[in-house]
């Protein structure tokens, strides 16, 4: 065991931080600057980060879960308004399904609570949400395949997360073009609501059915990357508040000199460090552990990070006082991003339930 980052991983982190420092938004007003956003998107495009989970050609990903997690953390820290998490998860799905890489910007479609990947129910009856859509013109999602070969997936289903449909033998990859509808929670990563999904347009060239086991591992990656984004969001938010606490004066002194303020920020910093540690493990576990263990590690990381991030961002608003409650202050942009990432692949409650089930506890006690 040696959980220090390798020199390559350190370099990747530094390079992501550098791109965000150069092209990321420094103020709320800059969120509306399409030229800056285009430069950020071009830099991310050129980096190849969105393809880290693409196929080496042998069916395995180019990078472990750790590399995209490092990128996600830096993008979160700098409130980068560029798609990354969605396209990374889409590339993961294409690799799993043995489908060719997307030809243009593509993200994933999730259920409206961002917790489920598989589209269920009557065609067109329940809307889905494409997340993290900047620069994307389509989304992929999964549909249950009734005619799938049951034998191939019998083993996989034994390890399945409860989220997967136990009656389905496998899943196929479907693709939908994105319309213009945008939701407004996360000011840095807009969603698109998908309404007409019937009949599903299957992705051409997919070589294999996606198994329940695949979905478990995919979910682990989604949780780990969302947690990494949350680590970054927390770090960026705490830095913003510390800067403000050193400048802002009341009673003739910087408010950061008051213990009441210092202790809030110290707690926020400690939570951030705890989140980083548990998330680093979850990111490593994505490929390194059996799927159910990877999911449990990711669920623990996500539950911790989602709860911590909300607390930290609330603290950051409080430290900013009245200004923290205005649109112009970046504090709410951090909070919104924290709430959004907090829901991706399940909120704290969903993931607490996953962890408890992994330990044989929780069915029937109000946990999904």
């Amino acid at each position: 065991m040696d959980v220090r980052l390798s020199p390559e991983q350190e370099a990747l982190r530094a390079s992501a931080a550098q791109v965000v420092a150069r092209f990321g938004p420094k103020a709320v007003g800059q969120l509306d600057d399409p030229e800056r956003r285009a430069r950020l998107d071009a830099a991310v495009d050129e980096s190849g980060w969105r393809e880290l989970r693409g196929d080496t050609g042998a069916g395995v990903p180019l990078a472990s879960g750790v590399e995209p997690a490092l990128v996600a953390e830096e993008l979160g820290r700098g409130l980068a308004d560029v798609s990354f998490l969605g396209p990374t998860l889409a590339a993961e799905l294409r690799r799993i399904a043995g489908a060719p890489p997307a030809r243009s910007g593509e993200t994933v479609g999730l259920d409206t609570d961002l917790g489920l990947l598989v589209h269920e129910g009557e065609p067109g009856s329940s809307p889905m949400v494409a997340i993290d859509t900047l620069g994307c013109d389509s989304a992929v999602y999964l549909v249950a395949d009734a005619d799938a070969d049951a034998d191939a997936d019998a083993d996989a289903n034994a390890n399945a997360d409860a989220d997967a449909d136990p009656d389905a033998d496998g899943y196929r990859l479907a693709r939908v073009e994105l319309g213009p509808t945008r939701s407004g929670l996360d000011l840095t990563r807009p969603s698109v609501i998908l309404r007409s999904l019937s009949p599903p347009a299957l992705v051409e060239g997919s070589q294999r059915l996606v198994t329940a086991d695949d979905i478990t591992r995919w979910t682990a990656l989604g949780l780990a990357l969302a947690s990494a984004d949350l680590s970054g969001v927390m770090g960026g938010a705490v830095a913003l508040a510390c800067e403000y606490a050193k400048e802002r004066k009341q009673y003739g002194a910087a408010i950061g000199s008051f213990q009441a303020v210092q202790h809030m920020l110290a707690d926020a910093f400690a939570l951030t460090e705890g989140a980083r540690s548990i998330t680093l493990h979850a990111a490593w576990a994505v490929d390194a552990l059996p799927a159910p263990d990877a999911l449990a590690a990711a669920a623990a990381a996500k539950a911790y990070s989602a709860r911590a991030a909300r607390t930290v961002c609330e603290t950051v608003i409080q430290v900013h006082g009245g200004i923290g409650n205005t649109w112009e202050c970046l504090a709410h942009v951090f909070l919104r991003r924290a709430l959004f990432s907090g829901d991706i692949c399940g909120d704290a409650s969903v993931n607490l339930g996953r962890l408890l089930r992994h330990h044989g506890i929780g069915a029937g006690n109000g946990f999904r």
Partner: protein
Amino acid sequence: MDFGDSPDESAFRIRLRTWLQDNNPGLPASSTDDEYWAGMAAWHRSLYDAGFFAMSWPTEIGGQGLSPVFEVIVDEELAAAGAPPRPSLGYLVQGIIEHGSPEIRRRFLPGIVNGRERWCQGFSEPDAGSDLASLRTRADREGDDFVLSGQKIWTSYSDEAEWCLLLARTDHDVATHRGISAFAVPMRQPGIKQRPLRMINGVTKEFGEVHFTGARVPAANMIGEPGEGWALAMTVVSHEREPGELGYVARYAKVVNDLGRRVRTDPAAFGSEQISELGWAMVEVEMLRRHVQRRLSERLNGIHHGPEGSVDKLLMTWVEQAVGHAALSSGGLAHGGGDDSWLHTYLYSRAQSVMGGTSQIQRNLIARRILGLPASS
């Protein structure tokens, strides 16, 4: 970056797991019972003799000179087996390694490490708690000895210890923290009286108070230079704050595993609030386990005592107190008699935000030394 075992690590893990099958002393959880504290010395020697203690300490003091990663493996396997955690004396060892002369290190460290000599720590005083530098116990030079007078409190294992790492004032004419020196004081001598403290969970064998009235310590037993006591104390407390040093992850994991078993045995008896509290305790323990792995890996770059220890201490405190709350809600209060160990686990958890520097002191340190916030006016 790799959380997995190397072949050496894996072989070590299996050896320890096998050994534990026959050598787990089956002591109660640390906080619940004097039996635990009474059994710790034997557990220490048993672990050490089998080659499962002092994994990462230098070989010249009886350690095995391996990577700190082996300490993590020990903690994980002890927790999985429901065995007691390893004794926490890394802070003593690090303090003496860093500040003691070669002679002092040779004389004292092997006995601490192999468990043949028991030590206690004489730092806090009734009027010097968080403000440790204001301590008043005196050490006055008389020939080749120093003569001690004063009172210490919160002295762990003072009833059993043969030696005390004592902080005392040797110079009254300089700023408070510069007049303090450290000594290795023999405890079994006239002029030292110790009285156990009964803690809120009823335990009497963990902490004591010690009165020094004319006890003597040879000048050769001074650890470090005159006036170096404060620096030594800072080394010791910064270590004391690190969960990796203390091996507490094993203790917390044991409580959570025991609670999980209890809930699985009769799930219908537990409501969603109780299950939720247990789930959060599991999350917290998992966080601390990974955090410790991260910190111990960072030590492969060389040991460094920075203010990060305060972050670790704060996280560890939150974990212990979340585990305490889970013990309270899922373990129960034994109103109808029976097992009251859960209540004691909970009660014990309240001390974690005080011992080794209060959570408020840790927050001060994080704010000033990590976040760079200005001094209070």
